[in-house]
């Protein structure tokens, strides 16, 4: 009895020190990564909040101005337009990416000759760097020598070249076409993987019951894909609302602010005009929206992850 008691006590003692050792090692291994995460994300975020209440201009000391920047920004003539452009690009862009991705996944889920090769080809836009996609499309949309004007005029559909990126009517659709072209394969990949995880018995049973193809899509495929759809749409919403390189390369926010999105505004104010205070304010006003999206998505992904384990 006394022997086993001593052993028990010893083990417990060893457990305790082993556990504390594990704690120390665990935290120690996180130090390098979290040094950067805190130093380059948490600290700058806090600093940006402070700067948004100052009149900071590059190269000059700042002074506290309260909510002056916030008032200035909301009264800025193009404030509504900028929010509208960002929302339009993000919401319509994501909806179209999801739609196109879904149709492509449905087609790729069928049997046909050369499927593996064709699938790899269809996923290529996802692998193209965004700046390259922006350059290619800007070149195709070029008003003097671009492919689109050349083809449309050659076919006699238009009489004279259209300035796609230079008119307020066409600039946003042109930018959005690139966003969709580059982004939809991500949706297609995810949806295809999701479709193949749906048990085929469900489809067989539905077919026996006489469900039409549309009904099977509506009552089996769509519900089976709801997690994938939610995750891809939210991820893409965050990314698309934050588009910078495509807009910068194709239009720089123009013509007359027709494609001005919030990242362009921050860049123009903060870097071009050196007005750090106002730029930080724009970032701060976008922060709650992104934080909300990210918190929901992170929770959701984490829950899924724990269910899996």
């Amino acid at each position, binding site marked *: 009895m006394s022997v086993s008691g001593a052993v028990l006590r010893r083990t417990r003692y060893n457990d305790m020190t082993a556990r504390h050792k594990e704690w120390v090692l665990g935290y120690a291994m996180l130090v390098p990564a979290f040094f950067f995460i805190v130093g380059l994300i948490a600290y700058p975020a806090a600093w940006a909040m402070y700067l948004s209440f100052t009149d900071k201009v590059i190269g000059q000391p700042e002074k506290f101005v309260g909510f002056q920047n916030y008032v200035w920004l909301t009264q800025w003539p193009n404030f509504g337009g900028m929010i509208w452009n960002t929302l339009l690009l993000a919401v319509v862009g994501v909806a179209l990416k999801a739609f196109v991705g879904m149709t492509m996944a449905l087609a790729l889920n069928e049997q046909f000759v050369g499927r593996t090769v064709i699938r790899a080809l269809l996923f*290529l836009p996802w692998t193209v760097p965004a700046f390259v996609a922006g350059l290619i499309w800007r070149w195709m949309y070029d008003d*003097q020598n671009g492919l689109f004007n050349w083809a449309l005029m050659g076919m006699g559909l238009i009489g004279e070249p259209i300035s796609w990126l230079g008119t307020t009517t066409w600039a946003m659709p042109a930018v959005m076409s690139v966003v969709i072209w580059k982004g939809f394969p991500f949706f297609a990949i995810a949806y295809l993987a999701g479709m193949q995880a749906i048990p085929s018995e469900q489809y067989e049973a539905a077919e026996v019951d006489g469900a039409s193809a549309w009904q099977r899509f509506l009552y089996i495929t769509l519900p089976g894909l709801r997690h994938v759809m939610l995750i891809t749409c939210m991820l893409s919403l965050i990314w698309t609302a934050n588009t910078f390189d495509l807009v910068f390369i194709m239009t720089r926010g123009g013509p007359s602010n027709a494609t001005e999105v919030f990242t362009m505004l921050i860049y123009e104010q903060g870097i071009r005009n050196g007005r750090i205070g106002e730029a930080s304010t724009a970032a701060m006003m976008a922060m709650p929206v992104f934080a909300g999206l990210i918190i929901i998505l992170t929770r959701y992904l984490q829950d899924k992850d724990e269910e899996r384990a």
Partner: protein
Amino acid sequence: MQGTLEAPAHSRSLLGSSRGRTKRIVVYATIIFYLFVVLLPLYWMVRSSIAENDQMYGTTIEFFPKKFTLAQFDAAINKWKFGLFLSNSVAVGLVTTILTTVMATLAAYSLVRLRFPGRAALARSVLFVYLIPGGLLFIPLFMIMQRLGLLNSQLALVVSYQTFAIPFCTWMLIGYFKGIPPEMEEAAQIDGASRLQSMFLVLLPMAAPGLVAAAVFTFTLAWNEFLFALVFITSESFRTLPVGLAGLIRGDIYLWGPMMAGSVLAAVPVMVLYTLANRMLVQGLAAGAVKG
């Protein structure tokens, strides 16, 4: 691993078998349409990179040019400093990748294999931080770089790229390490190996494919990055590819030939790497999303 995206041989059809022919026509038409939309811009990039100038500008444009030239590549590399941008991009990408992979490996191991208070919250914060868009951060990062005297140096890029590279790489490795059963490492520890020995000698060799994929993706993230590279670098000699190439867009002179040649050189390595490593990423994503 490889088979997850393949449909099983007895793959059911979503569109029904009764009207097989109509369905097949719709499927083929959809595929052909998407192939056209996807490949047209890529074809136009390649075509423009090897076409002669008189087939690019003016009235003599030909969709399939009859003559090819390497003059655009020559101009991109020798006249427009493409070689310089390329070497800058490679340097920044490699240093970023090495730094990130080391730190992320340590962090992911800790978050997956070790038990300590706050572990779950820290693991969640990794994903949270990865999703914070760079557009919100670049102004204060600019101020930090200025204060540290790093503006206009490649160090500014290596340091700022950690903001997305570390969380991304850690998140990917967490998923990968979780998929490897811990029994082998436990056996090694019973045989007297230390924690770190079991990690370096047992886990990491088994996780090699995941490490390679994480490193590849980290490299491509750095390679493609535009915003920080635009803002933190002001002199041409430190520019990386994305900003260097975009800088060739000039109002009155047409440089689309060299720009498309540069685009080919910038895009092809990344596209090959991505296509090879893509399965890993999709699997991680799909595993979390689909099996819920």
